[in-house]
């Protein structure tokens, strides 16, 4: 049970250990590795959004001097179904078809062949030599059109899951529903009913580092893969399964990573590089261009949401009903379930229903993006709440407080909440100086709540005590948001040593135990739990060694401030033994001192947030100006507060970008027209104010230090906060994102 205690290391803000390497360029990312005799792989991608592949001829490419291998879908084993593991939506069979098309291409940019050649230029020339004959088919791009009975089918073998007697193929891959109470009764009790349709566009995770890897496979089919990934163990497993190989034959090494946000939890290039390397006998490097990242890697779902909300004049929510269609891309697996379970999570609502649809369209297969599914569904409901607050002439924070969930509230998805910090977030928002000050002239102030469940899953950690008593932490969670520093802080706190005596390293798949992906806000919680337990293992061993040295029983030794000390009543005339002392005498007491732990961490604590923002709108141009943005979040105990604030700021900025400008723009043929950062406009520094943060720390009772997890929740609330601010600024409800200048102008003119 976590308690409010004065930690010595936890809660401090040491300089990030990877910072200097990253700003000096020394850090090695996915594309930085160069091996002797390495060749370069490239992917041929479909020019059609939907077409049958009638013929592929690789031979013209293979006849070119310097081209050492070429592959297409025919080279891959057939895989149907199978679990992706970790966080990937859909099946492994779909992932296999997504990374290399078989008989059909289902989105523009879908991979149809790959080559390896002695130079990137030659590889590009080889792609042009490959002959592919297509039978173009009409694409279906709109999620509502795709749900029509007579819609063009993305997959003729897709039958809807979650409905009885689905005897006809459909683009609806799955239906889900969550309900409680009596909707009719709830709406009958309402004094005010709000009913709206909201749209959120498909958006990309926008990580700065494109996908990249190097595979080096020997003549026995064994070898290594270096890649930028959020989970090298799952990349190894999925690559092996897709290629019908033994996972023991592949070693995966995670490079430094330039952002992932969920988009690097699934394989794209790695199985191709392994197959090409195995065919040609050379190491193969593959890197995506930015255009390829946009066209062929997982964005998150665009959605259409219909919400009906009933409230009493005193602000009590009496009923809520939602219908949300998610774009899955061309393969099933949109984040419908978490979106469904999150939509009403901050509130105690007696009568509700939410129905969700996983819908195939001829666009890239979606992948996880921070709190997958929650930003879209909660945008709709939080906008409806704001409209209700305006109609009731009620402060939007007060409306939320009246209905706020707390410990013991039955969550919409079932269980009663353990201790949570939503009300604390609302109280902090109400008292925040950014909220108590007047709304600037010409601006609107938007409020929204956010939520994410957080998860645990499997992690391993080993602790090695060096000969001088310094500490080496080895774990298998790729460091995306500063986890090495957090692991060092928890290890230092547990062992009772200073932070600068501890180092952390992310081990490869052969040098540390299994870890699930870094994602779902699980790493500081779950891998941190493994590190803490591994440190406890070290302490137990140290007490044993000290007892041996002093000639007393182990239970007569205690651990205080990084040293073994004799317990009360022990008459031994001994001095405390520090980690350095114990390591120095380790050769005589049993050899090197190590600790290890493996966990399947349960009991992740949910994280709630409240965001508010002041946004001014130029009524002549539609341009918005974000004057201030305040993010408040219950993070549980903040191990490294600067990293927590960084996660909150990063999520806020991504949410601002999604709300204000980011969208996939397609032409009628299903070709994305803005596949680059010039036209797909993520926020830059000059677009933004300082993102103000306030961390609320309600400890998670299921973690020894009270960790909840941070990284998912921050992207949830900004979408509705922005919508609500802009709507209040212009005095008109704007329901569809992004609120880009042309869209705002069009809405004002409507």
């Amino acid at each position, binding site marked *: 049970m976590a308690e409010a205690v004065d930690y010595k290391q936890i809660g401090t803000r040491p300089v990030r250990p990877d910072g200097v390497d990253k700003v000096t360029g020394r850090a090695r990312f996915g594309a930085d590795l160069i091996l002797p005799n390495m060749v370069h792989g490239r992917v041929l991608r479909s020019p059609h959004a939907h077409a049958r592949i009638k013929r592929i001829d690789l031979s013209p490419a293979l006849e070119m001097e310097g081209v050492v291998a070429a592959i297409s879908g025919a080279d891959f084993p057939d895989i149907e179904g199978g*679990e992706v593991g970790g*966080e990937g*939506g859909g099946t492994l069979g779909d992932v296999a078809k997504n990374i290399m098309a078989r008989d059909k291409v289902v989105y523009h940019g879908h991979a149809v062949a790959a080559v390896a050649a002695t130079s990137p230029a030659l590889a590009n020339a080889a792609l042009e030599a490959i002959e592919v004959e297509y039978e173009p088919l009409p694409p279906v791009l709109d999620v509502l059109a795709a749900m029509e009975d007579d819609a063009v089918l993305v997959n003729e073998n897709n039958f809807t899951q*979650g409905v*009885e007697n689905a005897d006809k193929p459909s683009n609806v891959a799955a239906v*889900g*529903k*969550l*309900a409680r109470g009596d909707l009719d009764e709830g709406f009958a009790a309402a004094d005010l009913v709000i009913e709206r349709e909201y749209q959120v566009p498909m958006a990309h*995770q926008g990580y700065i580092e494109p996908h990249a890897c190097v595979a080096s496979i020997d003549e026995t089919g064994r070898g290594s893969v270096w890649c930028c990934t959020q989970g090298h163990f799952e990349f190894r497993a999925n690559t092996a399964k897709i290629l019908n190989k033994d996972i023991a034959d592949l070693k995966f090494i995670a490079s430094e990573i330039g952002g*992932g*946000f*969920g*988009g690097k*939890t699934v394989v794209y290039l790695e199985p191709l590089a392994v197959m090409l390397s195995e065919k040609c006998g050379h190491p193969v490097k593959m890197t995506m261009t930015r255009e390829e990242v946009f066209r062929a890697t997982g964005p998150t779902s665009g959605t259409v949401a219909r919400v009906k909300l009933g409230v009493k004049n005193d602000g009590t929510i009496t009923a809520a009903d939602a219908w949300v269609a998610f774009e899955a891309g061309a393969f099933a697996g949109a*984040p419908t*379930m*978490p979106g469904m*379970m999150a939509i009403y999570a901050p509130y105690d609502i007696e009568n509700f229903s939410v129905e969700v649809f996983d819908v195939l369209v001829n666009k890239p297969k979606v992948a*996880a*993006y*921070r*709190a*997958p599914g929650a930003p879209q569904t909660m945008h709709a409901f939080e906008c409806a709440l704001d409209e209700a607050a305006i109609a009731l002439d009620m402060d939007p924070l007060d409306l939320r407080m009246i209905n706020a969930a707390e410990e013991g509230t039955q969550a919409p*998805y*079932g*269980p*009663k*909440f*353990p201790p949570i910090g939503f009300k604390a977030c609302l109280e902090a928002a109400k008292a925040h100086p950014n909220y108590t000050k007047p709304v600037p002239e010409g601006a609107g102030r938007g409020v929204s709540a956010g939520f*994410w*469940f*957080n*998860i*645990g*899953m499997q992690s391993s950690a080993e602790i090695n005590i060096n000969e001088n008593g310094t500490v080496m932490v080895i774990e298998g969670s790729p460091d995306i948001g500063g986890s090495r520093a957090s692991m060092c802080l928890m290890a230092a706190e547990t062992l009772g040593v200073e932070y600068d005596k501890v180092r952390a390293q992310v081990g490869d798949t052969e040098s540390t135990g299994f870890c699930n992906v870094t*994602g*779902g*806000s*699980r790493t500081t919680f779950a891998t941190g739990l493994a590190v803490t337990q591994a440190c406890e293992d070290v302490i137990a061993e140290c007490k044993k060694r000290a007892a041996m040295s002093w000639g007393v029983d182990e239970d007569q030794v205690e651990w205080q401030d990084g040293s073994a000390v004799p317990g009360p009543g022990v008459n031994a005339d001994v001095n405390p033994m520090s980690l350095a002392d114990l390591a120095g005498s380790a050769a005589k007491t049993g050899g090197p001192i190590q600790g290890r732990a493996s966990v*399947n961490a*349960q*009991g*992740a604590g949910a994280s709630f947030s409240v965001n508010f923002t002041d946004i001014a709108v130029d009524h002549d141009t539609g341009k918005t100006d974000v004057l201030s943005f305040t993010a408040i979040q219950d993070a549980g105990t903040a191990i490294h507060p600067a990293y927590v604030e960084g996660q909150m700021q990063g999520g806020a900025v991504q949410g601002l970008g999604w709300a204000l400008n980011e969208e996939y723009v397609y032409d009628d043929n299903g070709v994305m027209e803005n596949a680059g950062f010039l036209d797909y406009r993520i926020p830059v520094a000059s677009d933004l104010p300082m993102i103000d943060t306030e961390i609320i720390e309600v400890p998670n009772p*299921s973690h020894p230090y009270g960790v909840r997890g941070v*990284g*998912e929740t921050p992207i949830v609330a900004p979408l509705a906060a922005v919508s609500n601010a802009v709507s209040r600024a212009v005095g008109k409800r704007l329901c569809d994102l992004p609120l880009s200048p042309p869209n705002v102008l069009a809405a004002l003119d409507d």
Partner: protein
Amino acid sequence: MASVVFPDSFLEHTGGTREFDTAAACYRDLLTELKARWPDLTEILDRSAVAIDGQIYQDAFLEEIQPHSEVFFMARIEGG
């Protein structure tokens, strides 16, 4: 007896039964009971999360179920 609640996605396999009581003392025993009573539930149970007395478990096994426990099945959570 502990109470067990199923989500909508279970109902087609339980003949519409949403709630029932159990004397199972741990999650493993509850699973055994459920799979025996509704064999069609096996696949969906193996890829579901469960909340016991408010605590969510992605992969429960020997977690205790008390006589007055509340057990809710739910979809597994993912994340980015």
